[in-house]
């Protein structure tokens, strides 16, 4: 017997919003490569351009949606037709949230470039690389895991009463 609280049911995404779980994983591999190349080429115009492009990718994926994420588009149009039919689906919310976390790190890195604070660039891109690599290699969503801890720190606020 299973009972689901009304408040939980509201957060359960509809089946129509399920996506092929290999899509975000493929995107994480490309992201890992781009961010590693960014770190390897600091300080240079190339590294600033790479990080800016990656920020655009993160921004599209988080603000517009995963359907607009460029790596996801590459996956759907080029990669998936060559693969077997998908066996694992996942909700869109976690990978979209991960894109938002990446976007945040990328923006901090870009600010670092703009102000000449190279140490800030290294730290921000290093965190973004760690998150992307964990996603690519272990299917681990760092932002998702940190999310509840972050919510816990905001004192006393529950958005529904028991």
């Amino acid at each position, binding site marked *: 017997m*299973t009972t689901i609280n009304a408040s939980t049911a509201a*957060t359960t995404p509809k089946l129509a919003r399920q996506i092929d779980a290999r899509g975000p994983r493929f995107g994480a591999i490309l992201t890992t490569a781009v961010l590693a190349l960014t770190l390897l080429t600091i300080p240079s115009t190339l590294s600033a351009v790479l990080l800016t492009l990656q920020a655009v990718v993160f921004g599209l994926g988080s603000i517009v949606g995963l359907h607009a994420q460029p790596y996801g588009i590459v996956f759907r149009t080029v990669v998936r037709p060559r693969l077997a039919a998908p066996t694992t689906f996942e909700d869109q919310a976690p990978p979209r949230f991960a894109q938002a976390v990446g976007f945040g790190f990328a923006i901090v890195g870009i600010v670092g470039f703009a102000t000449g604070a190279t140490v800030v660039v290294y730290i921000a891109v290093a965190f973004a690389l760690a998150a992307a690599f964990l996603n690519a290699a272990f299917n681990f969503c760092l932002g998702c895991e940190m999310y509840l801890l972050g919510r816990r720190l905001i004192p006393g606020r529950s958005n529904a009463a028991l």
Partner: protein
Amino acid sequence: MTGIWVVLAVLVLATVFGLYRRATDGRLREVEIAADPTDSVHVPGTPPGAGYAHEGDKLSTEDIGEPLGARATLVQFSSAFCAPCRATRVILEEVSAMLEGVVHVEIDAEAHLDLVRRLDVRRTPTVLVLDAAGLVRVRAAGAPRKADVIAALGQIF
């Protein structure tokens, strides 16, 4: 040159963390029971005057918003940004359907932050196995394996 070392450090640290997480994720752990009656809740099945648990670990119908199972309750904390929560739900639904007197209750962690803090839930999914009295006896952070859940239930029945 700095970039190479940063990349290497990130990849090594992330790999170590990822392997550690893979090895421990979803592992069910028994909640520690104190011998001394420092906390006031006696654990059923232990000798009188021997097994005591933290009072905050005893959950009521009011706490979880649903009636407790006659024999055990599988409480799952979930959130919107949680890929493994769905797999966990499937596993716990199967177990609760299979075993008489076992119910599965899914709780939106964000909507119940007081409970989240009281039980020190740090991520989703977190699974608590409650005995018939509502006491948290076993818990796991991450998606537990079905066989482990059944084994844990066997211990507290």
